[in-house]
């Protein structure tokens, strides 16, 4: 992987463990410390999976409530991060699948939105913020082309920088399945993001 960067909070698993065992005795304050530490990660996973800020916020709240209610069944030798990833990913996949059919695909008429000649001349004019938001939108549109299961693997591998083994543990599926989902997903993303126009414009700006 190029340009390794840790998006998840610094892996202070001992601290997590202390808060978890306090939470297991019913200490909501301890659990809220875990929430404060992990809310940004959980919210952004949900945001990229669901593509909707309100839904993502609602999902984040639900995920932490579910986690708190079932904290008694959390095994001491497990990582809290893996556990919370598992809950948020499963929650989002269920959310996407329970949407009316077709809604999880973006409203896309098939026109090539990765060719930004038209709008980037406006958006890219010496305005990094606007360009960044356009980039985000394009990535979001590209991610929406993936199946929920592919999205889950891409999220954990590329955005959370987890290993294949960790992902297999979280999603509870074989390594070979994870890899095939990852490569299939990557090909879809490349078709929409890899043509270079945007990167070129980024350099210009």
């Amino acid at each position: 992987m190029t340009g390794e960067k840790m998006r998840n909070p610094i892996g202070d698993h001992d601290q997590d463990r202390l808060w978890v065992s306090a939470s297991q005795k019913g200490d909501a304050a301890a659990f809220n410390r875990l929430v404060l530490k992990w809310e940004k990660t959980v919210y952004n996973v949900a945001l990229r999976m669901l593509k909707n800020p309100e839904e993502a916020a609602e999902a984040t709240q639900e995920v932490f409530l579910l986690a708190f209610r079932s904290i008694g069944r959390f095994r001491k030798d497990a990582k809290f991060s893996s556990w919370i990833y598992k809950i948020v990913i499963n929650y989002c996949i269920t959310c996407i699948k329970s949407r009316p059919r077709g809604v999880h695909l973006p409203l896309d008429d098939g026109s090539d939105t990765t060719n930004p000649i038209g709008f980037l001349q406006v958006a890219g004019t010496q305005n990094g913020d606007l360009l960044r938001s356009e980039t985000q939108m394009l990535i979001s549109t590209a991610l929406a082309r993936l199946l929920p299961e592919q999205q889950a693997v891409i999220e954990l591998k590329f955005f959370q920088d987890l290993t294949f083994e960790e992902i297999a543990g979280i999603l509870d599926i074989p390594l070979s399945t994870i890899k095939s989902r990852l490569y299939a997903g990557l090909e879809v993303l490349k078709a929409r993001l890899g043509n270079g126009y945007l990167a070129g414009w980024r350099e210009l700006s």
Partner: protein
Amino acid sequence: MKPECSEYKKVLAKSLAEDLAPGERQSFEEHLAACPDCQAERASYLRTLELMQSVEDKPVPRHFFVPAGNPRLNPWDLFRMLQPHWQVLAAAAACLFIIVSIGWATSLRRSENDVAALKKDILKSMEEKNRADRTAWLREVRAEIERSRTDLTQEQQARLSAAIARLDSKFAGQLRKGEALAKSDNELMAAALYQVVVRQRAQDLNYVNLRFNSMAANSAVKDQQVDVMLATLLQAAELSVK
């Protein structure tokens, strides 16, 4: 694009995820160095990854909290945590459980109801039969008395009526007892007693009939004879209610 490129396209994605076996890596790098198409493909993948790396996490719109207290996970929350295909299985299992439970409860209830209804029916029919037998017998005795009344003196008629009334009330009492017994748990005993009473009553009736017939045949009935007849009748009644 060279024919082997389609093969290397798969390897390309694997190389980006650092998932290549050492032998695979060497032949891939050799091919890549000599193939502009695959180089372009690789550049395209790298741009995609670069773009994705540029995505920054957004700040949370608000902080999230869980309320204090010790909430328990309810079955519905558990169900929502399941993967969709497990949800389907769980829902099917729950439905099956409910159907089986309802079926079981209904069958149990029905058999209990059946036994109770059967008991009630038996008691009722026994009661009805008792009543019908009794009224039929009394009707026959009364009819017999009416027929032979003309042959008796006033005094004899009165004594006969009184005797019959006593007999009637005694039998009625006996039958009530019989009914009460039949209603009790000891149904077999009640039924046996009922059989004895019925047999005795049939004999009594036969005897009374014979007597009345002989009385009718003899137009000049003696008081003594009537007395004897009445004594016998009373005796029979006494006997039957023992």
